[in-house]
């Protein structure tokens, strides 16, 4: 783990987000990936950026966190695209949240006469199906996407995918529901009503009655009657469901569509991302690239974790006992950092490569090392910190006026503690950076062809358009070779 591992000097191609958003040939961008990786935020940020680059955009989100929805000004779940205020420039941003039940209802209403539609909507089986079936959300997201695309009102549709059990559900569920709704079994359920007593179909009826008998036993006769009523009412619509599912599927394979796989630089998320990349290829769906969210970097990356820890230890060894000042080393957690716990004299500090010129040892020697109580013991004192030496007002206090040379021993310790803390923090950051890099390298080794953009981690959540703009900037800059620096 040397300083250069931290640079984003990766061999993989960069993903040019702006070129993608500006391309008039691209009409649909689908953001997919496993749960908790920031898909919805990415979709919203892309929407804001594309709109401010002059396009007329609609973002279809599935299940946004409340704050995120509010950041775009949509806290109503009404299944209709709403214009988002506050977008700079000529472009427009519209946003909507998918209401899967309403989308299903609307689909039924659009494809059946009023009486039949009412019969379907009131059917208990339909009501459960439209609200509860595990694939309904995915199917309805696709249905809505098809509708939005057919209206041709927007230059660009950005779709967020549902929080599926696994990333692949999103591709499978529409097909599954489609094939169920006009599948073999549903046809069998309908058969008695349709084929009546036709002689040639008799054997089928035997099978049918055996089956409906079993299912009737299992689920109760009423359930089966509800299903049969539903199926009879839906009969004319089945072809429509299937053909629309097929059409949307083809739409996703078309050149005007671009998939972005979203992940974080963690093992599980990138494993899912790799599956998804493979699956998209198998389905011949066009992958634009990987958005890697919450990536850490450091502008001080030339100082490695080992060097930082060694330097921190030099300062720690030189420490003068002072209970009041002794608190800066640790916060309120037991530090699991092995480098800190192993700070005993038996383990000599690694010689920092970058520090060879001045060398760490003299520092330790010219200080009075009067005790070597490990920093851990100070946990109790650290709990009492707020009011003491390190309070904000201290910044303008004698330490500055007198300068380090004239500082009292107490204050000199203060700055050493502080510096040691900064070094340990940096070491932790560098360890995170190195870890993320290794995880990312594993992905790149599997899929070197996938362009990547890395989005630097923000310390907090996004609450407004400015936050989304900041993410958008990072999405655009993330393919640059320099590490995304301080967040």
């Amino acid at each position, binding site marked *: 783990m040397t300083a250069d591992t931290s640079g984003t000097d990766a061999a993989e191609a960069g993903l040019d987000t702006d070129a993608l958003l500006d391309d008039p040939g691209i009409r649909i961008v689908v953001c997919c990936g496993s*749960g908790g990786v920031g898909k919805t935020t990415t979709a919203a940020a892309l929407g804001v950026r594309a709109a401010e680059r002059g396009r007329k955009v609609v973002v279809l989100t599935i299940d946004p*966190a409340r704050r995120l929805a509010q950041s775009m000004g949509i806290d109503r779940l009404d299944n209709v695209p709403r214009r988002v205020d506050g977008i700079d420039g000529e472009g427009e941003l519209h946003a909507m949240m998918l209401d899967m039940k309403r989308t299903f209802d609307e689909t039924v209403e659009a494809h059946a006469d009023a009486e039949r539609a009412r019969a379907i909507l009131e059917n208990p089986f339909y*009501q*459960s*199906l439209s609200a*509860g079936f595990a*694939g309904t959300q995915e199917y309805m997201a696709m249905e809505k996407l098809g509708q939005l695309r057919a209206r041709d009102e927007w230059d660009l549709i950005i779709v967020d995918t549902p*929080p599926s*059990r*696994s990333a692949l559900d999103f591709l499978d569920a529409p097909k*599954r*529901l489609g094939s*169920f709704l006009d*599948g*073999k*079994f549903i046809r069998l359920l309908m058969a008695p009503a349709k084929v009546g007593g036709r002689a040639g179909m008799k054997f089928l009826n035997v099978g049918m009655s*055996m*089956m409906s008998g*079993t299912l*009737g*036993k*299992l*689920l*109760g006769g009423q*359930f089966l009657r509800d*299903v049969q009523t539903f199926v009879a009412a839906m009969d004319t619509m089945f072809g429509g469901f299937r053909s629309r599912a097929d059409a949307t599927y083809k739409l996703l394979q078309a050149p005007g569509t671009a998939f972005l796989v979203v992940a974080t630089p963690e093992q599980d*998320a990138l494993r899912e991302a790799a599956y998804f990349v493979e699956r998209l290829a198998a389905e011949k769906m066009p992958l634009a690239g990987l958005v890697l969210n919450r990536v850490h970097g450091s*502008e*001080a990356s030339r100082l490695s974790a080992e060097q930082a820890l060694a*330097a921190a230890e030099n300062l720690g060894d030189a420490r003068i006992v002072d209970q009041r000042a002794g608190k*800066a080393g*640790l916060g309120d*957690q*037991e530090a699991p950092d092995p480098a800190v716990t192993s700070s005993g004299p038996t383990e000599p500090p690694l010689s*920092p490569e*970058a*520090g060879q*010129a*001045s060398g*760490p040892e003299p520092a330790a020697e010219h200080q009075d090392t009067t005790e070597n109580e490990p920093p851990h013991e100070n946990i109790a004192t650290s709990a009492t*910190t707020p009011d*003491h030496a*390190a309070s*904000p007002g201290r910044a*303008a206090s004698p330490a*500055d006026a007198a*300068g*380090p040379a004239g*500082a009292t021993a107490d204050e000199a310790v203060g700055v050493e*503690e502080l510096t*040691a*803390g900064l*070094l340990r*923090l940096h070491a932790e*950051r560098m360890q*995170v950076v190195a*870890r993320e890099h290794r995880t990312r390298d594993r992905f790149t080794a599997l899929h070197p062809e996938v362009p990547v953009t890395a989005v630097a981690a923000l*310390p*907090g959540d996004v609450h407004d358009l400015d936050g989304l703009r900041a993410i958008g900037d990072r999405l655009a800059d993330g393919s640059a070779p320099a590490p995304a*620096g301080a967040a």
Partner: protein
Amino acid sequence: MSRFQVVSGKGGTGKTTVAAALALALATEGRRTLLVEVEGRQGIAQLFGSDALPYEERKIAVAPGGGEVYALAIDAERALLDYLQMFYKLGSAGRALKKLGAIDFATTIAPGVRDVLLTGKACEAVRRKDKQGRFVYDHVIMDAPPTGRITRFLNVNDEVAGLARIGPIYNQAQAVMRVLKSPQTAVHLVTLLEEMPVQETADGIAELRAAELPVGSVFVNMVRPHLLDEDALRTAAGGRRKEIAKTLTRAGVTGSAALVRPLVEQAAEHAERVGLEREQRAVLAGLGLPTAELPLIGDGVDLAALHDLATELRKQGAGEEGDA
């Protein structure tokens, strides 16, 4: 202590890891636990580094003191076929049903039926006794669907009530609900110290309570160490950069002048994060539930790390109380 512990949480919070650590923690001192997954993701196998789990309970780890952790990936289709076999001695007719798509239909399309089968299988394991009349498993731990779907998933009664008003599925749903709503069950939620997962946790708890499902503990996962005291950090952002640069040089760091700004900026970010985490801790404290914290495991969770997490959970007495 609840015998059936359900672990849910927002996607990406590490539900599977927490469920596995809990199964290990509860298996100490010669006890036996069963860790079940219901979403067909083979997350348990990945975590324990084993082959894909079959539809079969098998030992996956041992705990200190001779305890054992078994694992099972519940598959709705297999559970339905088992069920039909058990009650109707279907034999080859089951295969015929499968061929016609009836099994697929019942487990995929028929709403709620799938969930009844999955929770039903887990509840069966909770209640199962050996010939001596002792429970086969001291605890059953479920790696459950995420927070957004957990209430609907567990509240199978409501789901099925509108459809199957009589018959075995209905009866099964009733039996499952009796277990789920009893003090035998605790539903835990996993979160991170971040705004969205914490908000989702609060919403999930409200939903669970409204459905009268027993809420257990909140597990705060991936907690990062605090390396610097916040007030010290604020000072660092102030006017002590020259001193820090000199101290860095003295500690053996070359070119320290250029490093001070990024180091201090990193510290400021850290301080901001610590502040946000404190706000989220306060929100969690306001939920009034037992809370356990698990440290961030940087390099991916393996079996050794799971044991460490289990030890941590035992220390904090996790899984031992619920509000039911």
